[in-house]
């Protein structure tokens, strides 16, 4: 069976600066990621993995090359069009969670719905329902009205994951999702990502931690703006079937 192509990049280049101080953060990267893949991108700092994440997340535009996201060419889109793509097709999970400090967990999860076009987000009532369902899926429905500062790091990251999922994105991008967490919470978050993968999500995760990278199906190493290696993870084991997902974990 051939699966839908979620990411297809061709000869992607990103150059910062000009002339003598020119830095090639990405130097002709070509990569394909299919639907329901779980990919870890690894490499030392300065290897270009963050730049790639920014471009994959439509936060930045490449200097040259093409980028097709879910078969749509997004390399030439303007800021507003990129915002629409981020809203509908991409869910971000950041190392520092990036929750709005003055908003409750529920409001944070609802945030992407606020920016849905053409009123597709439904009524406030429907949005509440949807956000509560996402919070339930990450086991935090009882924390819906807590502010981020009243939550633990692991809980904040789970709120961020619920937020990333609310618009049913084609792609989940996780940038060092466990970077700020203790080992125990980190494992919980990784188990959660694995369960999402098991339910069909496509996940691209940046990390420099081999133990975290081991959760992925496929590991791509970057060095100096190029792909150094791209291989299947031999130790990868599929997550238990959906009915055994522990909703109340932690």
């Amino acid at each position: 069976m051939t699966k839908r192509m979620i990411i297809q990049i061709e000869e992607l280049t990103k150059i910062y600066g000009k002339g003598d101080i020119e830095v090639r953060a990405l130097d002709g990267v070509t990569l394909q990621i299919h639907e329901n893949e779980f990919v870890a991108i690894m490499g030392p700092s300065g290897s270009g993995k963050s730049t790639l994440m920014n471009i994959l997340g439509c936060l930045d535009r490449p200097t040259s090359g093409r980028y097709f996201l879910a078969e749509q060419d997004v390399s030439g889109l303007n800021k507003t069009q990129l915002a629409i793509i981020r809203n509908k097709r991409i869910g971000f999970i950041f190392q520092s969670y990036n929750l709005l400090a003055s908003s409750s967990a529920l409001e944070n999860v609802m945030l992407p719905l606020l920016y849905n076009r053409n009123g597709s987000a439904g009524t406030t009532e429907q949005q509440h329902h949807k956000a509560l369902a996402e919070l339930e899926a990450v086991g935090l429905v009882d924390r819906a009205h807590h502010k981020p500062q009243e939550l633990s790091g692991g809980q904040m990251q789970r709120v961020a994951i619920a937020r990333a999922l609310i618009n049913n994105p084609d792609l989940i991008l996780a940038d060092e999702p466990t970077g700020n967490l203790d080992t125990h919470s980190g494992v919980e978050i990784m188990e959660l990502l694995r369960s999402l993968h098991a339910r069909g999500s496509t996940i691209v995760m940046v990390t420099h931690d081999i133990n975290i990278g081991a959760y992925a199906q496929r590991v791509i190493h970057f060095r100096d703006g190029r792909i150094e290696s791209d291989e299947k993870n031999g130790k990868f084991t599929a997550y238990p079937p959906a009915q055994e997902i522990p909703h109340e974990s932690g």
Partner: protein
Amino acid sequence: MRVDKVLQIAWKGLARNKLRSLLTMLGVIIGVSAVIIMIAISAGTEKTIEEQITSLGTNLVFITQNFSRGGFQPGNPGQERGGLVFDDAQSIADGVEGVEGVVVEQNSTQNVDAGSTTLEDVSILGTTPDFPSVRDITIANGRYFNQAEVDRKQKVAVLGATLAEELFGDTTPVGQVVSVGNTNTKVTVVGVFNKKGQVGDADYDSRLYVPITVVFQKFTPSQFARIMGDRVRMIYVKVDDSMPLDDVILQIQLLLAKRHNVSLDSPDFSVTTQEDIIQTRESTTAAFRNLLAWVAAVSLVVGGIGIMNIMLVSVTERTREIGIRQSVGASPNDIRRQFLTEALLLSLVGGLIGVIVGVGGAWLYGKFSGMRTVIVPNSILLAFVSAAVVGIFFGFYPANKAAQLDPIEALRHE
């Protein structure tokens, strides 16, 4: 983005920094309240003037002597009597067509002694019998003096309502005798006026009215009168409503020029209408209003700059928040709208408080300054709209700055 959500987010943004938001609004509050108070004051003044027109009538002509242009000049044989004299009034009454009444006034200030009560520096007005009809004032008690009494220099008096009360209290003034001035002139009260109130500078109710001939004889310095003749301060002419006012004025001018032996190019008198006086007052009011309008405009602009300043601080402070919103799909337009709405909300809430302060201030000002203030509903609208315009204008730059932020930079911001 839905409008109610935008408003909700903006409101939350402002509520987070209540004191700062309030201080930011201060400029707008001052500007808006200044606009409303200013318009209330000038509307009050206009209303007062309007009432004077109806109380005095527009068909009134004032003749005053004019010293600055060819008035009395010693040594100039043709003009040694100069200025307005009592006989001028009579000749106007006799020789000008369309004159309904002529009143001559000569004033003086004297002490008045009613036996039990003595009042100092009472305004004494010497007039002629047409005075009540020309000045539109009615007798409450007794009568006004007649032509015969004026001719015979009869020592009779009519009291203004306030003066009557001050001198006699509850007892009936008519028939009483008061003693006026150093000469202890005994005058008999024959009538009391109804209340008229303040018209322009003159308080009609606290004056003592006597035949003008009595003033000439008793209260104007005798040497002055001997050289100048019976000089009068002012002649009022009430013109028949059916006659064109300009015609009558021209007739008066020609007659007086002939009597005074002066040319119309440099007369020793000037003729003004009620309308001229009102126009002068209105131009004074307009100047005052313009000044206040500038003050209001300047403080609105200052308020706007305050809003811009705080919005720029706010954009910098909330760079991370902007980045988060961008990452989940907020477009530049969404961000711009959010900050523009905050600026607009600041100026509108400021405007609302300004309206309350302005209306309250105008009311208090009217109560304590003695000046009349009338709150004009349109001024509230005007103030509100200008506040909104200020908010949008000065909010645009910071909002645009926020909208143009690079999401990666914004997310990295601490």
